[in-house]
């Protein structure tokens, strides 16, 4: 049976662990709020951008000429972008993304396609490398606080791979934030850009006559990369919010387990103490009797 000292030591250890998990939970909650704020902040920009593209597209005679919108007749190579976090202790957050990427990779390979994997986040990069996958591109140090220029760097690389036909399709695999308790794994093709996302066939030209500098088709083409950037940025933010939410939930569960464990240990401690006291009394009584 565990001695009183052993139990006391365990109680102290569980207490300090609980302190850490509690602190991590609160930090994650604060970071989650910030990530959600950034998702909100993006919305007006994204809406203005897409509305403008749709308006500009009404002036374009042949929208088939835009490289970023063109579907390839044959899909030979696919890029999968795995978005994980830089740190663990977030429940199944990282594992879910990696598992999905590996499944998709296998399916595509069996279908005879080339797969190029790119990864965001130290956890994903580490696991994929450990499993001996060659990574086509990696980005780390941004999952905690993604900024727009991070998304631009990633988008620029993806656009380049697509334009040079290194890949015929680009898919993002990331966690979408639903609630701190729930993330939804997304698998979204961002290149080629789906026509209906930026071009509406039924849209009418605006009644006002605008002056365009340069011409509408050129502006449209120059703004197209922004659409990809927004998609990447949104995925980074969703993933970051999911990570914090998952960590918050995982840490709350850990704190609750610690709480429960402390209850059990305290009970065991009291029992052991009681037993020790009883033992002592018995010994005293027995000693007294022996003398008498």
């Amino acid at each position, binding site marked *: 049976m565990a001695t009183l000292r052993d139990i006391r030591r365990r109680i102290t250890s569980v207490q300090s662990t609980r302190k850490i998990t509690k602190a991590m939970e609160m930090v994650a909650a604060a970071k989650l709020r910030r990530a959600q704020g*950034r998702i909100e*902040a*993006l919305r*007006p*920009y*994204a809406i*203005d*951008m897409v509305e*403008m593209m749709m308006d*500009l597209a009404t002036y374009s005679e042949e929208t088939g000429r835009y490289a970023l919108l063109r579907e390839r007749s044959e899909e030979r190579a696919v890029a999968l972008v795995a978005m994980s976090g830089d740190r663990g202790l977030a429940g199944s957050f990282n594992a879910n993304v990696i598992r999905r990427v590996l499944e998709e990779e296998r399916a595509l390979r069996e279908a005879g396609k080339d797969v190029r994997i790119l990864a965001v986040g130290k956890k994903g990069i580490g696991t994929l490398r450990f499993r001996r996958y060659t990574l086509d591109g990696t980005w780390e140090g941004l999952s905690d606080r993604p*900024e*727009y*220029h991070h*998304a*631009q*760097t990633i988008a*620029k*690389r993806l656009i380049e791979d697509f334009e040079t036909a290194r890949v015929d399709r680009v898919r993002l695999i990331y966690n979408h934030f639903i609630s701190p308790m729930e993330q939804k794994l997304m698998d979204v093709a961002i290149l080629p850009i789906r026509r209906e996302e930026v071009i509406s066939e039924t849209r009418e030209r605006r009644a*006002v*006559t*605008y*002056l*365009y*500098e*340069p011409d*509408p088709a*050129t*502006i449209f083409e*120059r*703004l197209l990369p*922004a659409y990809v*950037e*927004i998609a990447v*940025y949104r995925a980074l933010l969703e993933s970051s919010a999911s990570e914090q939410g998952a960590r918050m939930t995982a840490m709350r569960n850990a704190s609750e387990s610690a709480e429960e464990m402390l209850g059990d240990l305290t009970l065991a401690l009291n029992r052991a103490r009681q037993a020790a006291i009883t033992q002592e009394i018995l010994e005293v009584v027995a000693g007294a009797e022996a003398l008498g």
Partner: protein
Amino acid sequence: MTEKALHLEVVTPEGEVYHDDVTMVVLPGVEGELGILARHQPLVTLLDIGETRVKRLDGTYDYIATGVGYAEVLFDKVMVVVDHGEIAGRIDVERAEEAARRAREQLERRDDPGARAEIDFYRAEQALRRAENRLRVARRAL
């Protein structure tokens, strides 16, 4: 004669950085600067990295370091939708200088084949352009 006001909004992916009624806006268009006053013709233009100058109603100027995007002028409203925007007085000069220095260091290693693998030169170049623009605009506030 009192000048008629324009309403200016500057929107970026990281939030709105400016909105106010102003007298004049000078935009860094891709084909040169554009001065916008009230009753300007409806306009849509691409913007390059540069400085957006704002003449306020009281006659003083605000300077905003803006990135790439577009501007739309319609019925005395100017919407500037760009990937980056910072008002001169709020630019962290030390941070911008640090960013510029880092970017320059990376770009200096352009000819070193060993560095090619670890440095994204495009990113460094963009970072440098952004940082230099911020520094240039920040000096306006002094």
